[in-house]
């Protein structure tokens, strides 16, 4: 249980997928102009990352059994693409409300490198995760992404009417802002999780 807590909090605060590992930057910058859409994107990514972690972990075991380890990247990305399509279909049929809210972001998730990234991190032999740890890592990675994008969207909404030099408008100021949020997250990396969790 303690290892799961360490993975969970570590993936959210210390090795945040966006701010420390540079995964999922495209949606982080692209879909963070409004708080509402940021929340939607965060939820959709969390869902897909959790599912993808669980499925690709099993798929990798299968590949290794048949000595096909070199096909991991190509298989994972196809699994993720199919998964995203599948989620889209299920949502459209059974939860039109949620589909309305997330629908436009779902196709974008296939090319979100946080999803393929977490799948590849999970199978890294030096991490040595088991199935449960991998799934928790995927879920926590998604929660970390959601936290980062919500914080960032809140800041960007306030920035909208700030007077800025023309050259700084848009991406440049967004990147500098992301740098400041990232500095704030560096503060977490000083925490000793083991001590905090009383382990």
């Amino acid at each position, binding site marked *: 249980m303690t290892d799961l807590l360490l993975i969970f909090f570590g993936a959210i605060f210390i090795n945040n997928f966006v701010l420390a590992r540079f995964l999922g930057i*495209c949606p982080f910058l692209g879909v963070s102009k409004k708080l509402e859409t940021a929340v939607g994107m965060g939820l959709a990514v969390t869902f897909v990352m959790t599912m993808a972690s669980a499925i690709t972990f099993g798929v990798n075991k299968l590949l290794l059994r048949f000595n096909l380890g070199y096909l*991991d*990247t*190509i298989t994972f990305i196809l699994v993720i693409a199919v998964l995203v399509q599948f989620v889209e279909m299920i949502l459209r049929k059974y939860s039109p409300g949620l589909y309305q809210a997330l629908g436009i972001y779902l196709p974008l998730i296939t090319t979100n490198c946080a999803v393929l990234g977490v799948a590849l991190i999970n199978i890294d032999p030096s991490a040595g995760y088991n199935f449960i740890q991998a799934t928790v890592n995927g879920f926590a990675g998604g929660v970390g992404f959601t936290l980062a994008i919500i914080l960032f969207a809140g800041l960007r909404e306030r920035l909208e009417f700030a007077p800025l030099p023309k*050259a700084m408008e848009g991406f440049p100021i967004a990147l500098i802002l992301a*740098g400041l949020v990232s500095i704030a997250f*560096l503060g977490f990396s000083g925490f000793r999780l083991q001590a905090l969790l009383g382990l």
Partner: protein
Amino acid sequence: MKDRWRVFANGIFGENPIFRLVLGMCPTLATSTAVANALGMGLAATFVLVCSNVIISLLRNIIPDEVRIPCYIVVVATFVTIVDKVMAASAPGLHQVLGIFIPLIVVNCIILGRAEAFASKNSVSRSFMDGLGMGLGFTLGLLLLSIIREPLGEGTFLVAEDFGFEGLRVIAEDKQVLMFILPPGAFITLGLVLAGINKLVAKLSTVWAQKGGE
């Protein structure tokens, strides 16, 4: 022939993937910590871009529209795996540093974007030049960032352990600005460089406008 070179130059300047299109941000931020890493990442992406552009252009009349995205992904993933394996065999140190960012070239928006927007509609030779231009434009962008970040953050320049090059010490040890190689430094450096380039482009276009229709 002139048309081919225009396509090539467009990738490097007019539509530079990092500075003009603002695509492929993840590897840009993550691998521009040192010049050697930036060069390795840039060339790996260039190889994948050129090869996938050529193959997709060759197959553009065979691939049915409905399944084109999965087909593109398979083609790109194949070349990415080739790069991954070749790099692991020839430059293991660099391969270890770049880590998952090599396989993540698969989901780099630049590559799928060029497949969809250019290679699927253009001849093989034009697609080749587009891939080469975009790839080198990406590499140049990475190099520019790493040339700022490595000396300031690490205090060294051009360290390449795989090739036995020790690098030059630019700033005395313990005097460097560590922030530049940490994640916040990546965001802030890219933001400032982007703003500088925006300013430059704005200035150049007013100069050209004043010259009037030349």
